């Protein structure tokens, strides 16, 4: 991720009132992760798998934080069960920030399957999402998604693709 | 002309814990919540569903007074519900319509009215009510008339209908509706608290179980 995109994400998170971040350290986010961990405006909780991250964010929202989970496309599959059994069953908000590996233009063969899983899985889980490919649109997309997840009390995802994750 | 907020606070004083109130989406709900009865009422019922929902409630609990605080735009969307009320003739149902003659929620906000409803033209909702078989249907234009009509409706057997002609905009509600959230219940929380309220009042079980 280039530093402009990282800054755009950070700005979006701050503008929308996100104050709690959980993530599994992952290469697509390494630049962002460093910024987040060093930023006192976020409580930060590293997790060893994304299912735990969903649980941590659920607890954080229930006790007064505005959480976001930074989750790679692979991790979305790991998180499917708690997204179902916690977020859907209880009606909990959660901002999911996903670098969309396997989108068209991502030539790495290992990422191919995520084109087939990511958006259909979000559909199955009834998680509305927006795909953002321009860095200049990142901040607003995050602010909008956060507003919606908080008032709808269901997860909403922002998928970052194209120049935003280069 | 009278103001919706004033009529609602007048009406709030007349209602007791034994009565059930249903309010539609739009500015009636936040104004009604100010009376402190939000959690024990069914609030923010979606467009066109206020009177029919109150009718179902009145038929299910015939011994209990049920009041729909409806509005012109909402009622017109499901106008046929007046026909159903007229046929079922629930003695315990009162429909109060705050008739401001415009679609306020769909308007520009900032203290300006929205596009006109049919009642801004030739439509007379009280006459429609009577035509549907709700004989006790009247129009009120002042606070005093409203008070007399509401007292009568709460005391006597119904069904009854009061069409209150009110200001086109709500004085204290000049913000754009998008900003109009904040404290109060969302519909899901309200569902639970209203159902629990009736469970306590009636000593019945509505919500089955939590399981697990």
């Amino acid at each position, binding site marked *: 991720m280039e530093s402009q995109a990282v800054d755009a994400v950070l700005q979006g998170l701050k*503008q*929308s009132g996100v104050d*709690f971040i*959980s993530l599994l350290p992952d290469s697509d986010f390494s630049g962002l992760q460093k910024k987040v961990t060093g930023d006192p405006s976020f*409580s930060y*909780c*590293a*997790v*060893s*798998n994304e*299912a*735990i*991250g*969903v*649980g*941590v*964010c*659920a*607890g*954080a*929202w*229930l*006790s*007064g*934080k505005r*959480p976001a989970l930074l989750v790679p496309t692979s991790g979305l599959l790991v998180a499917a*069960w*708690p997204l179902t*059994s*916690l977020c859907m*069953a*209880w*009606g*909990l908000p959660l901002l999911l920030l996903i670098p969309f590996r396997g989108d068209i233009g991502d030539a790495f063969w290992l990422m191919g399957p995520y084109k087939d899983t990511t958006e259909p899985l979000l559909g199955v889980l009834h998680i509305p999402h927006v795909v953002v490919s321009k860095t200049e649109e990142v901040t607003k997309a995050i*602010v*909008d998604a*956060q*507003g919606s997840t*908080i*008032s709808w009390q269901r997860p909403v995802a922002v998928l970052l693709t194209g120049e935003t994750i280069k | 002309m009278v103001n919706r907020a004033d009529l609602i606070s007048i009406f709030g004083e007349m209602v007791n814990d034994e009565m059930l109130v249903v309010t539609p989406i739009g500015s009636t709900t936040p104004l009604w919540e100010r009376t402190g009865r939000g959690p024990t009422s069914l609030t923010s019922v979606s467009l066109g569903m206020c009177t029919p929902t109150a009718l179902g409630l009145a038929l299910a609990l015939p011994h209990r007074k049920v009041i729909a605080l409806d509005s012109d735009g909402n009622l017109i969307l499901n106008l046929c519900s007046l026909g159903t009320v007229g046929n079922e003739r629930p003695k315990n149902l009162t429909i109060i319509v705050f008739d401001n003659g415009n679609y306020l929620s769909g308007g520009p906000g900032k203290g300006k009215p929205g596009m006109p409803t049919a009642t801004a033209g030739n439509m007379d909702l009280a006459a429609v009510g009577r035509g549907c078989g709700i004989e006790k249907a009247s129009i009120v234009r002042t606070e005093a008339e409203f008070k007399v009509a509401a007292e009568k409706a709460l005391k006597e057997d119904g069904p009854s209908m009061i069409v209150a002609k009110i200001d086109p905009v709500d004085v204290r509600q000049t913000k754009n509706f*998008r*900003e109009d*959230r*904040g*404290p*109060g*219940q*969302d519909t*899901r*929380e309200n569902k*639970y608290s209203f159902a629990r309220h009736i469970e306590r009042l009636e000593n019945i079980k509505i*919500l089955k*179980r*939590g*399981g*697990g």
Partner: protein
Amino acid sequence: MKRFDCFKSLAAMLGPDDIVVANVGPISREWNALRPSEANLLQVNLGLCAAVGLGIAITLPHRRVVILDGDGNLLLNLASLADMANQGLKNVLHIVLDNETYEGGGGLPSATAGKADLALIAKGAGIENARVVTVLDDFAQAAGDALRSSGHRFIVAKVDKGTVEKLPTLTLDGKEGKYRFARYIERTEGKQILRPRYTHI
């Protein structure tokens, strides 16, 4: 040792403000029967009890958070222990009611019936105050010690299989439970969680 007796002893030690996160199934039902309270977040689904407790403990560091976990549940997301340990928590008592069984799923043995030792795993994950208790007196003493001091304590209570007869059924589903818990936190913490003003557009 019976789980219900452990809960009786624990319930007597907790203050009204102590937050309890409990696993779905008999753990929630038994606990609710002994300590019905808005400070309980019940019926957290399989494998997520520790994680949800962790999120609350980070957010409310001045409140005590008690996590009532099961062996099968914790095993499903064992890495929760490592993630918790790394947070350096000062306000958590994590109790695993270990009956060595997937009780809800027909009673087949869990890994703790074999060689897995959850207290040892917790120590390995970095939770120093981790111990196993097998009799009620030890449980009461361990829990009492934990509640008298700050820190992150982990107790594995080896309990019998089976639950108590005639427990009252839980009447709240997850959504209603969410509202109850969030309103309770709003009231006791002076925060606004539900229905914040939404003015970003």
